[in-house]
């Protein structure tokens, strides 16, 4: 047992160093394309760290959203950016040569270093025993309607946060529509392998999303992870140039992105009519209501992520 914990410690240190190294090289590599790839690997390593921290829910969310969809968004944007990445580093290097700039840089770096040291110093003043809200969650989980404590916090105890968070996603979508970067519609060079892959994987991804949603009440998983997987399936279809996927993004299907927020509003306001508080589920139907909310939220999140991707992506084939 002793050697196991020691091995774990070594593993943790290696993971931490790997994360720092990937972050550093992603933020300072000469080539933007490489930076994005390194960022995706960074996200994957992060989800390994989450597993080690006994946070499987976050690990799933990070792999699907943090690495997967953010990576896809970054890649798609990079393909549309006019200039390659080496220019910015070169400009930076020439600016560094000026003496005053170097002094400023030294000052800034030492300030940052002092800041980091102070954070670490403060960590040692945290109370050594920490239970946070674990006890409170444990006593109320009986009445929460679900058994996975993370899902209970997300959809019941702090469901109001989740509601606002869905609005954040929606706000991003509205904003993206405002900027109105329409995807460049060129004729697709059809890619048979991608097509086959998409048609094979999409049903599986939908199945996985449903599974994650269903398992989320008891174990790791839930609306966000499922929504992200659904979104990934949509992104795949879009990449394969699948027409119905485009049609799904158009009206009237586009109003489906409102499903999650609408379901939340409905479930939130209903208890008010019977004199209870906002989002206060009746105890015996809490589980059902949460599942309904999660289904709506999953569809909404998946479609929103797809739509966000569609707005930054250019069709393949017009890349330089």
């Amino acid at each position: 047992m002793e050697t196991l914990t020691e091995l774990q410690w070594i593993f943790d240190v290696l993971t931490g160093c790997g994360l720092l190294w990937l972050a550093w090289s992603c933020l300072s590599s000469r080539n933007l394309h490489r930076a994005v790839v390194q960022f995706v690997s960074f996200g994957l390593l992060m989800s390994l760290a989450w597993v080690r921290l006994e946070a499987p829910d976050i690990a799933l969310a990070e792999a699907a959203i943090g690495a997967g969809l953010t990576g896809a968004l970054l890649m798609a944007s990079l393909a549309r950016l006019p200039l390659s990445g080496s220019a910015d580093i070169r400009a930076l290097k020439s600016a560094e040569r000026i003496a005053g700039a170097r002094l400023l840089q030294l000052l800034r770096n030492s300030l940052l270093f002092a800041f980091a040291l102070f954070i670490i110093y403060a960590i040692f003043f945290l109370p050594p025993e920490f239970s946070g809200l674990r006890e409170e969650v444990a006593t109320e989980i009986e009445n929460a309607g679900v058994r996975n404590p993370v899902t209970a916090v997300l959809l019941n105890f702090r469901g109001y946060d989740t509601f606002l968070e869905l609005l954040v996603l929606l706000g991003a979508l509205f904003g993206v529509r405002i900027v109105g970067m329409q995807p460049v519609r060129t004729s697709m060079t059809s890619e048979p392998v991608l097509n086959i892959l998409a048609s094979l994987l999409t049903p599986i991804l939908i199945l996985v999303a449903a599974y994650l949603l269903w398992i989320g009440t008891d174990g790791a998983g839930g609306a966000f992870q499922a929504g992200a997987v659904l979104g990934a399936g949509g992104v795949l279809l879009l990449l394969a140039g699948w027409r119905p996927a485009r049609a799904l993004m158009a009206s009237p299907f586009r109003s489906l992105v409102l499903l999650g927020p609408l379901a939340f509003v409905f479930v939130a306001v209903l208890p008010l009519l019977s004199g209870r508080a906002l989002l206060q589920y009746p105890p015996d139907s809490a589980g059902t209501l949460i599942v309904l909310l999660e289904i709506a939220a999953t569809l909404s999140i998946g479609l929103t992520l797809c739509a966000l991707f569609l707005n930054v992506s250019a069709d393949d084939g017009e890349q330089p």
Partner: protein
Amino acid sequence: MTPTDWFTAMLLGLGTIFFIAGAVGLIRFPDTYTRLHIATKTDNVGLGLIVFGLAVQSGSWSVAGKLVLIWLLVMLAGASVAYLVANGAISRGIPVWKR
């Protein structure tokens, strides 16, 4: 350690060797196409060995099934992506390595 454990350990060790070989190849091989080749091939075999080793330990069909499903998915994705990357490289005119 039971015989099953030994079996698992052997498979995991073998799988790891494949992964390491793949990583070395990725660094050492001369061009995009050969790198793709080594990376996908060793990953598929290495992951297969590891999945098999873990499936033996799991003791339940549903877990073993999920592990095998993961392997199949990775193979599917790996093969397609390798093809797509290679295709992209060709269409961009990246030359094939010649001795």
